[in-house]
């Protein structure tokens, strides 16, 4: 039984890693097509770095990710504090609404945003589809995730700590800044990290909300795959895989040290 489980686990991990290893190997392969390894080369990386558009797309991706994460983290944290600390009519309904952006298929999310922006443009005359609309779109789904993560952290906190701060004469804002926020910090950081990952990885919402000149790396990868296999995509994918592995390993090492 034990041996069967081990074999099973090995096969599943092979299933998980085989595609990635193939991409990495192909990015160093001289041959343009097929899987026969005809010799080691760095040509595809050179071609990738010489393409000025790729740098643009990379910067677009980073800009969208950082701006949307920042806004979504602030909004999500405030919403979570509001939901946990205050009572108001419709609170239960609002809490349920939070799950909708989390579970709704991203195609529906993408087209809903597209329709909303089209409607807004008809009525208000803006916004045009651009990086700005992409950022708005990302914030929309990120807020829900950040709120849920921060809320679960806040629910663990002892309300007596805030009461103590108030008893000692702290105002609402001071209590929030000096007591609530530092205590909720791990939740806020985890929520922000989740939001950042979601934004960097997002293709579908970006696909529907991006206008001309707002290409991000996922959009670029999609169009190159659609137009036909280019080894440059293998090189780009390998770099992205390497970077995510590096950051994930860093996060893993940091959390281990704390324990």
């Amino acid at each position, binding site marked *: 039984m034990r041996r069967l489980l081990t074999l099973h686990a090995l096969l*599943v991990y092979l299933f998980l890693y085989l595609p990635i290893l193939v991409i990495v190997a192909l990015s160093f392969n001289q041959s343009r097509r097929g899987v026969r390894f005809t010799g080691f080369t760095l040509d595809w990386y050179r071609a990738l770095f010489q393409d000025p558009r790729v740098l643009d797309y990379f910067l677009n991706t980073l800009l969208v990710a950082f701006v949307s994460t920042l806004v979504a983290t602030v909004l999500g944290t405030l919403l979570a504090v509001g939901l946990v600390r205050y009572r108001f009519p419709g609170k239960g309904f609002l809490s349920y609404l939070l799950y909708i952006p989390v579970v709704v298929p991203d195609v529906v999310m993408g*087209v809903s945003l597209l329709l909303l922006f089209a409607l807004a443009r008809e009525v208000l005359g803006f916004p045009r589809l651009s990086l700005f609309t992409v950022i708005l779109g990302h914030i929309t789904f990120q807020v829900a995730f950040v709120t849920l993560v921060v809320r679960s952290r806040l629910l663990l906190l002892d309300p007596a700590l805030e009461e103590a701060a108030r008893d000692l004469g702290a105002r609402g804002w001071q209590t929030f800044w000096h007591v609530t926020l530092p205590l909720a910090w791990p939740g806020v950081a985890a929520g922000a990290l989740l939001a950042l990952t979601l934004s960097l990885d997002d293709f579908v919402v970006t696909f529907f909300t991006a206008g001309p000149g707002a290409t991000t790396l996922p959009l670029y990868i999609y169009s190159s795959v659609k137009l036909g296999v280019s080894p440059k995509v293998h090189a780009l994918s390998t770099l*992205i895989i390497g970077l995510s592995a590096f950051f994930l390993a860093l996060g893993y090492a940091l959390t281990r040290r704390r324990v």
Partner: protein
Amino acid sequence: MASFLTRGPYGELTGPWGFHNYAKLPHPVYLEAFAQSLLVGVLATLISALLGYPLAFYIARHPQRDLLLFLLLLPFLTNFLIRVYAWLVLLQREGLVNALLGAFGLGPLVLYPSFFAVLLATVYTFLPFFVLPVYASVERLDWQLLEAAYDLGAKPVKAFLHAVLPQTYPGLFAGSVLVFIPAMGTFVVADLLGAGRVVLIGNLIQQQFGITRDWAFGAALGVFLMGFVLLSLYLYARLQGERGLKDLV
């Protein structure tokens, strides 16, 4: 704020209002897309269960489980498109899978584009969503119940079915929902690996907003898909109680 953005618009963009877009839904083409989406969702969930359930046990009982979890999440955090694209590379005519089959004197098979390719990549993409909730249940498992079952003379299979399996139901349900919903709703996997041969609801929606430019009908399809997702979520919540919803996130 999130609520009004995700709620699908009902009306037409121009012209008369009405339900005529919904009246188009029972057309055979759309019904087939819906049936295929359901099939992908159900099969992907079943295969994920077969692969993920034993794996969750293996990881939970392994001394290096943090490392194993890390290795499970690593491919998952690389870009979604790259992971789908990798299967395109593996399954294409000159790909690795056909090369291996060729070595045994088989093939080449047309593995791409196909329903099989879409299903495989869907499982690949969402497998961790299944493993993580099951892992959480296995970690909380009370193994004394299993020992008690053995003490009472139960055979291993029976002991598992009565003492272990019921304890993992919350994880199984949560994992199934987490795989079923995105597997049904995705359009990217079918778009890249089905290449027009596999059309899911997501692809229909994308077509209405892309080539066909019938936004109103696309919105109707979107509302329909969302209604279906909310319905399955409601059924899940009925089964698991409100706590189940929190466990999902």
